[in-house]
């Protein structure tokens, strides 16, 4: 891998956003994601490659370490912030069409539920994995999901819930989505959700953590 791209990946993993960032202490005064991203672009590396071969590998390592219980939510957030800083430089290339996302995922917390931190984390990991997230917020009913799928031509939907009562609302939402858009993949998650429940309501995948959902989408769907 190109040395600059490796540095981008490493800085994301370490949460080093830019030269002025004091964290982590051992990288004080050294370049961070922002400087290396700029250097990569200046050296003619495409924005797509910066994203795919620099940023995504860094975030992917973070996601795996989180799933393995080696690091925790705040560590993921620190890395995501570093990536976001670099993403600012990549954004214009998405607008011009030079860089592309892997696909769109509509993400929401289901009807009756107002919890959004878990969903936000999934959104962040998906973005870090190169997906464009359409976040429809909390308390989202089937209609809201369906409108978002239609308006964004999305092929993937992610549902989140934190209580057993609201988890049950996932069933009707999944069934309505599937009856209107049989080709759309539905992924579900949240503290009370289990694989057994996921199978029983006809969703395509259950993941206990955001990285699992990302891996599934990356591996199983060639979008």
């Amino acid at each position: 891998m190109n040395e600059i791209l490796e540095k981008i990946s490493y800085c994301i993993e370490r949460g080093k956003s830019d030269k002025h960032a004091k964290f982590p202490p051992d990288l004080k005064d050294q370049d961070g994601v922002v400087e290396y991203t700029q250097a990569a672009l200046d050296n003619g590396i495409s924005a797509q490659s910066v994203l795919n071969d620099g940023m995504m590998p860094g975030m992917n390592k973070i996601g795996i370490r989180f799933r393995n219980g080696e690091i925790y939510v705040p560590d993921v957030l620190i890395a995501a912030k570093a990536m976001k800083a670099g993403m600012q430089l990549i954004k214009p290339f998405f607008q011009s069409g030079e860089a592309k996302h892997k696909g769109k995922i509509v993400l929401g917390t289901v009807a009756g539920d107002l919890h959004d931190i878990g969903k936000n984390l999934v959104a962040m990991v998906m973005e870090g994995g190169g997906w464009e997230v359409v976040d429809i917020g909390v308390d989202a009913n089937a209609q809201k999901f369906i409108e978002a799928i239609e308006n964004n031509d999305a092929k993937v939907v992610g549902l989140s819930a934190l209580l057993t009562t609201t988890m049950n609302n996932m069933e009707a939402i999944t069934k309505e989505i599937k009856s209107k858009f049989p080709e759309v993949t539905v992924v579900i998650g949240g503290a009370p959700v289990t694989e057994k429940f996921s199978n029983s309501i006809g969703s395509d995948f259950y993941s206990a953590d955001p990285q699992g959902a990302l891996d599934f989408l990356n591996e199983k769907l060639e979008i």
Partner: protein
Amino acid sequence: MKDQDNCIWIGGTEIESLHKFDLEPSDIKINKQFLYQSLGYQNEIPEPVLIEIDKTIDYLNALVEIQAGFKLISPERVKFHSGYILIDDERLNTKAIIGKKLVDSETLAIFVATLGSRLEEKSKKLMSEGDLLQGYILDAVGSELVEQTTDWLQLQVENLLSENNLKITNRYSPGYCGWNVVDQQIIFSFLPKLFCGIKLSESSLMVPIKSVSGVIGIGKNVIKSDYECSICDMTNCSRRRVM
């Protein structure tokens, strides 16, 4: 803080009473060890996380409106069975794990506690503006604060009853250990409407989110242990208190 009820439990004679407290944030101390643990950390905590926690605790006061309260139910209204409790004709299906812990009780205190909704609004705002770590830490501090508030409330119940030689069990909440979260509908039906400013939705979600509900068993021969995470079946819970 003030107890807005002057009605007390008089030695052995059951008097139904409602107790409500408005607390200052300074009344409740955040246990930082528990907070670190709830964030997942056992040993080394990254500096930005420590800095953010201290910053958050400093500005927390402006974001919380702590209210807590409990209702003591008259013993003749309550019947304990191993898997359920009857209050009048209403059945709380605690299921076996919690039922067993309450079965020696003579009556119950039904409690709620909340931080109000300003904290969660601020956390949402921070997250949507991209301040992910700040938003998340604020949310976690809020969760710890409401837990500590509930500890404090439990102590009030304990102190009040100890004057009458009565003891309490640990507190138990619908939604844990097989007790369906829907039973909150019954719990709330015994409390005044919007008690402590908490609204229970159709899906049994309390609003504000940073709220807790539950029951505490009361009797001469009941036992309270230090921590009871060991009875919960969610063994991978980040909040599991390890002693």
